[in-house]
């Protein structure tokens, strides 16, 4: 591990220095306080008090008032330290694949704790119950609720609820009761821990945070249902544990004064249900309200993120006011509003919301882990071998029992049961996180004399699960995943397999969804008929393709296409002549590298769940891929859009015909072809004005194919000169980079530069001949479209639009 951390040593060192300075300052400042006025109490305002109490004091040139800023100052430093550590963590590529990021956060926390302990610093800002529940918890819950993939969640809803609800209860009560039995053994010295205490401990220790491990086995491509189970568990588990925890605390308080009667237990169960359902209810209400409000924000889009955050938070607060589950409320709110808000708000607000949410939640979690590290290193521990070991063992046993029992039942109702492997992974992903620690840390000492023991046991469980399970789960998944070990032997296989996957995915899409047929249909109808009309702005695009286009960010697309063109070759380019007879000379290494290129660069089969990383917001590869594919396919797609607009065919063609006649190009068929291409970019601008340049750069990929053809073909000399013009015309548009790229190509091939573009006309013609040779595929309708483009192209107005 020490080897792994080298990269951020350099970052960390000055941060540590800063931290030490801070500590030194605070010491100095408190020393100063002591020396100036020993009677003054220490505290944030001590220095002012000290200053005012001495009349002789002059205005000093330099003053130090560390106490005033201590809390925010230290919190800021912690967060910065954790961020720098994260940068280092991700600089070293292999590390994130090896362990969850929570390992790193815990280590940083322990480091800070060690420093604080070592320097004997006065107690750092501590977490208390209200800080945790009011400020730290909501962002974390909101984040996971908002990033939950909605559709697969609802498709798997039955299994998720079944697993997360009863699962949490079985774990809580199982662990609690079995620990209670252990406590009855006199030899362990635990007889003062009563049943309620044990149940409470069970409830807090059963709150798992498996989503932290999702990042670890991300690249192992676990299947969607498994992914959703783990995600759903994270989402609901916290809520259930907290509700249980609060009810049990209430019981404990009551128990102090009177005995608990069966009626109370029944009331507790009823309360459990009311609290849960009430929370969800309020969440949904607030979700709809905020979606409705974002309908009217088009003129002041800067406050869109604010609306989203404030309403989610409000739902949490309102639910808490009414003693309902705020966690479930904020989750439900996020899930409800997400769909509508995303359609209403502007693209930038959408990005802001995403990033801000990630940021808030990661700040919360960092703080909790640092509190955890701080409280790990200190004197507030009580070590009891029996209790701690049995806690560890029972956590594993009960998780295993709940997984295998519950999935045995739910498999009976599923079309696609969870395999034993899936269940093993779910069992093994029972990593405890910040939630357990916070709940343990917040136990009121007055009610729980053995709180220190609980905290210690919780810490041990967290450390064990995060470090040991978190680090080994990646290899375990890889080991269980048979497909990974099967290495494909030939390029053909690699290609055909992926093609088959795409084909299957495509056919699936054609067949549509097959789940929850009636319920979903009904909801969709209701959604369409009422909800969307009320909640979503009226001018939304009609077809899904249009909305996809809308989501494309042009700049990115251009950059992407450009870098794709400019990226250098990884292996030797076979020479033109050599290619024909001498392909056999490819060494095994070349074949190997080809296969690698294919494996890494072939488009992934679309997933319905987006990849989720708790700590980071990666640019979704699937999104990027979708952009690429859309750009490439835009001709056919656009055609379908155009048809969708149901413009009468004849009319535009007619008007353009006139322009064509007035344009001085006649009897220059080659030039006309060239313009046909240009026109491809210019027409239909109303839909996506940003496309033309993009299209161009993508197109240049096909150009090199055409370059190749040029070897076999003779080109009429006349066209060279016109081609030269056209080349300049191109360069103006695409700028220096593109130019450089082409130069490179020009050097590679022993051809004069200007042939390239000329060839395009020839080959353009040729490819059309080819196309018509295909015959039946090239249908009348397409031909018509083609000729229409042809006519359009000669409109000078359209031409100019391009510039």
């Amino acid at each position, binding site marked *: 591990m020490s080897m792994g951390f080298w990269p951020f040593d350099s970052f960390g060192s000055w941060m540590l220095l800063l931290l030490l300075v801070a500590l030194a300052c605070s010491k100095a400042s408190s020393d100063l306080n002591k020396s100036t006025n020993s009677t003054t109490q220490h505290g944030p305002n001590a220095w002012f008090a000290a200053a005012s109490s001495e009349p002789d004091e002059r205005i000093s040139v330099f003053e130090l008032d560390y106490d005033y800023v201590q809390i925010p100052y230290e919190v800021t430093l912690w967060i910065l330290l954790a961020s720098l550590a994260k940068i280092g963590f991700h600089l070293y590529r292999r590390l994130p694949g090896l362990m969850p990021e929570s390992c790193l956060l815990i280590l940083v926390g322990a480091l800070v704790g060690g420093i604080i302990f070592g320097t004997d610093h006065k107690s750092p800002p501590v977490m208390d119950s209200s800080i945790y529940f009011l400020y730290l918890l909501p962002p974390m819950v909101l984040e996971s609720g908002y990033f939950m993939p909605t559709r697969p969640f609802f*498709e798997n809803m*039955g*299994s998720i609820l079944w697993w997360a609800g009863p699962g949490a209860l079985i774990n809580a009560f199982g662990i609690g009761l079995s620990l209670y039995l252990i406590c009855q053994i006199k030899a362990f010295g635990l007889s003062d821990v009563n049943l309620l205490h044990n149940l409470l401990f069970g409830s807090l220790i059963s709150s798992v945070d498996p989503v932290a491990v999702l990042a670890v086995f991300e690249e192992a491509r676990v299947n969607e*249902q498994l992914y959703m189970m783990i995600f759903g568990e994270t989402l609901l588990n916290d809520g259930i544990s907290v509700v249980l925890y609060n009810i049990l605390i209430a019981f404990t308080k009551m128990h102090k004064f009177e005995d608990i009667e069966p009626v109370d237990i029944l009331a507790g169960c009823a309360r459990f249900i009311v609290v849960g359902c009430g929370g969800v209810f309020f969440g949904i209400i607030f979700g709809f309200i905020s979606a409705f409000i974002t309908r009217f924000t088009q003129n002041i889009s800067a406050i869109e993120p604010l609306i989203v955050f404030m309403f989610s938070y409000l739902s949490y607060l309102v639910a808490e006011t009414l003693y309902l589950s705020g966690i479930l409320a904020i989750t439900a709110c996020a899930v409800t509003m997400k769909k509508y808000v995303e359609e209403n708000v502007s693209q930038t607000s959408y990005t802001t919301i995403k990033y801000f949410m990630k940021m808030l939640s990661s700040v919360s979690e960092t703080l909790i882990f640092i509190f955890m590290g701080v409280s790990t290193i200190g004197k507030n521990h009580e070590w009891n071998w029996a209790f701690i070991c049995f806690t560890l063992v029972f956590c594993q046993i009960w998780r295993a029992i709940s997984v295998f029992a519950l999935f045995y039942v739910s498999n009976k*109702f*599923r*079309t*696609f049961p969870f395999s034993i*492997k899936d269940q093993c992974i779910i069992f093994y992903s029972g990593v405890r996180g910040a939630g357990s620690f916070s709940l343990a840390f917040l136990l009121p000492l007055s009610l729980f004399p053995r709180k220190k023991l609980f905290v210690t046991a919780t810490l041990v469980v967290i450390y064990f699960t995060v470090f040991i399970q978190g680090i080994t789960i990646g290899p375990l998944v890889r080991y269980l995943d048979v*497909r990974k070990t*099967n290495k494909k032997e*030939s390029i053909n*296989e690699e290609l*055909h*397999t*992926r093609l*088959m996957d*795409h*084909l*299957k995915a*495509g056919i699936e*899409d*054609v*067949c*549509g969804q*097959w*789940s*929850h047929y009636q319920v979903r*249909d009904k909801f969709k109808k209701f959604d369409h008929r009422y909800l969307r009309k009320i909640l979503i702005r009226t001018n939304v695009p009609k*077809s*899904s*393709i249009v909305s*996809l286009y809308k989501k494309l960010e042009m700049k990115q697309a251009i950059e992407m296409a450009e*870098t*794709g*063109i400019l*990226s250098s*070759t990884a*292996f030797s*380019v*076979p020479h033109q002549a050599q*290619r024909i007879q001498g*392909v*056999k000379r490819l060494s095994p290494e070349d074949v190997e590298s*080809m296969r690698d290129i294919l494996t890494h660069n*072939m*488009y992934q089969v679309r997933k*319905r769940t987006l990849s989720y990383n708790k700590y980071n917001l990666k640019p979704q590869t699937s999104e990027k*891929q979708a952009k690429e*594919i859309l750009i490439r*396919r835009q001709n*056919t797609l656009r055609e*379908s859009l155009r*048809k969708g607009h149901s413009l009468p065919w004849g009319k535009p063609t007619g008007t353009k015909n006139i322009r064509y006649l007035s344009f001085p190009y006649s009897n220059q068929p080659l030039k006309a072809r060239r313009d046909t291409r240009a026109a491809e970019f210019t027409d239909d601008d109303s839909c996506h004005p940003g496309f033309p340049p993009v299209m161009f750069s993508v197109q240049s990929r096909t150009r090199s194919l055409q370059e*190749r053809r040029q070897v076999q073909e003779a080109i009429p000399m006349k066209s060279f000169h016109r081609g030269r013009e056209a080349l300049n015309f191109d360069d103006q548009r695409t700028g220096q980079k593109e130019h450089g790229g082409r130069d490179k190509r020009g050097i*590679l091939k022993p051809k004069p530069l200007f042939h390239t573009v000329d060839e395009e006309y020839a080959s353009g013609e040729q490819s059309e001949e080819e196309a018509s040779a*295909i015959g039946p*595929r090239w*249908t009348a*309708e397409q031909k018509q479209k083609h000729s229409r483009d042809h006519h359009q192209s000669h409109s000078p107005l359209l031409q100019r639009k391009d510039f």
Partner: protein
Amino acid sequence: MGSSGSHATVIPDGDSIRRETGFSQASLLRLYHRFRALDRNKKGYLSRMDLQQIGALAVNPLGDRIIDSFFPDGSQRVDFSGFVRVLAHFRPVDEEEAGIRDPKQPEPLNSRMNKLRFAFQLYDLDRDGKISRHEMLQVLRLMVGVQVTEEQLESIADRTVQEADEDGDGAVSFLEFTKVRMPLGTLRVQTGWEGSGNQVQCRAERGALREWGEGLWGRGRAWGRKSEV
């Protein structure tokens, strides 16, 4: 759209389609509903545009080719029987069915050969029975991201054709194609990690859906073990 409503619908030529494709009544009914949902203007047939409107298909790199395969011989419309006939290729091979099949009858659409032929047609644009280097390159262009240069793609295409080409004509024939695919069959068997099917179904629906699910959501069977024989 309750279950009572769907029973009342009558599929045109239902019986003959069922015999030809081997779909069960329930699957056929579902497909019919899907067909009508895709058919925007209630034309009674699907046009290219109807299929292009499927959002997920728009971002499928092979989207155009898949759509084209629904419109053989340049037709612009596909009716329900044509639609189902294409989909029938993806029905998993049924164990009992394979046993009792009358050898005189034509091969079912979902036989291994027909499946392979369907895939082959995605490559073979000019329908000459061969995947030329050019066609291979076109498929590669569709499937590979822009990071890979054209030169790389070309040499990959060369290599791919060359690897499969046994008779040295510089193209991959259907026979050669089936040989390449051979190890694939074993590859996809029993992986258990395949597929994205994740529906919680009520029990009554299960039988009918399982037939579908396994074919479509790839438990590895459709292209897998059975077809190896």
